[in-house]
C-alpha cells in the first residue's frame, strides 16, 4: 500500500493533540485524502486528541458533514477524541435545517475552548479570546 499523498491541509502536532482546519476550497478528493492522512497521523503520532477548526468554512453541506462524522468515528476507533471547533452561526442554522446534526461529533465554540477540552490550558496572563480572534 502506498503512503497517502499529502493533502493540502496542514496538520500540526502539539503534544498529544493534532490541530488542523478545513478550508472552503477543499474539493472532494482532497477531503478524502485529508481523512486518510489524518488517521495515519493519529496512529503515527500517537495522538489522543484532534482539533478540527471549521471557522473558515462558510458552508457545510452533506458531503463535508459526512466527512466530519466519519473522521470522528475513525479517530474514536483509533483511541483519539475529535473536537470540531468554531462553526459559524449561519452554518449551524443551515445544517440543522438541512437535517444534519453531526451526531457523535463533539464540538466547541472556538479553537481555544476546543483545546481546553482536550486538556490544553491557556497560558497565564493572556486575556480570554485573543488567540481565537486572531484566527478570523
Amino acid at each position, binding site marked *: 500500500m502506498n503512503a497517502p499523498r499529502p493533502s493540502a491541509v496542514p496538520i500540526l502536532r502539539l503534544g498529544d493533540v493534532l490541530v488542523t482546519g478545513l478550508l*472552503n*476550497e477543499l*474539493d*472532494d*478528493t482532497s477531503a478524502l485524502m485529508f481523512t486518510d492522512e489524518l488517521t495515519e497521523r493519529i496512529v503515527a503520532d500517537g495522538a489522543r486528541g484532534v482539533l478540527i477548526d471549521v471557522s473558515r468554512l*462558510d*458552508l*457545510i*453541506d*452533506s*458531503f463535508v*458533514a*459526512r466527512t466530519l462524522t466519519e473522521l470522528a468515528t475513525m479517530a474514536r476507533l483509533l483511541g483519539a477524541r475529535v473536537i470540531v471547533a468554531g462553526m*459559524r*452561526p*449561519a*452554518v449551524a*442554522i*443551515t445544517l440543522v*435545517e*438541512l*437535517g*444534519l446534526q453531526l451526531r457523535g461529533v463533539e464540538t466547541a465554540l472556538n479553537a481555544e475552548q476546543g483545546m481546553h477540552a482536550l486538556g490544553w490550558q491557556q497560558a497565564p496572563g493572556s486575556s480570554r479570546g485573543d488567540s481565537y480572534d486572531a484566527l478570523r
Partner: protein
Amino acid sequence: MTLYDEGYARGAQQADGPLRPVGLDVAPGAATTHAVMSEQDLLTVRHAVRSATVEAGFALVDQTRIVTAASELARNAYVHGGGGSLTIEVLGHGARAGVRLIVRDNGPGIPDLEKALTDGWTTGAGLGHGLGGARRLMHEFDVDTVVGQGTTVTAIRWNNR
C-alpha cells in the same frame, strides 16, 4: 409539489433558451449557466451562487442556505446525473428579490421521487439528506425527472418573505 406552471419546467428541459416564467420579471442578463462536470465545478458554482445571493440582497444566513442548497443539487447532478449544469437567476418581482437555481442533468432520472425526497434515503455515498434538505432550504422547489432522460430541479428563495 409543482409550485408554478408545470409547462415551464418541461419547457426548461427541452429548450435551453431564455426562460420566461409567467408572473416573474427577470432582470435581463441576470441569468448565468455554469457547467457541473467536475469537482472543481462544484466549488466554482458555489462562488457564483454566493455572488448572486449578495447581488439579490440576502443576509448572511439566507446566503448560506441558498449556497448550501446549490451545493447539494450540483453534487446530485455531478454524482448521480453524470454531470450537468446549474443556471442562476436573480429575480426581481415588485419589491422583493430572489434567486432561482435550475440544476439540470441528463442522467438516469429518479424512479421514486417521493422516496428520494425522504431523509436518509440514498443510492450513493451521501447521507441521503441532499434533495429533501435542499428543498427545506428553499421557498419553492420543483423536480422534473424522467427515468432514462434526466432530472431538472428548479428552486427559488425569496428575500423579504
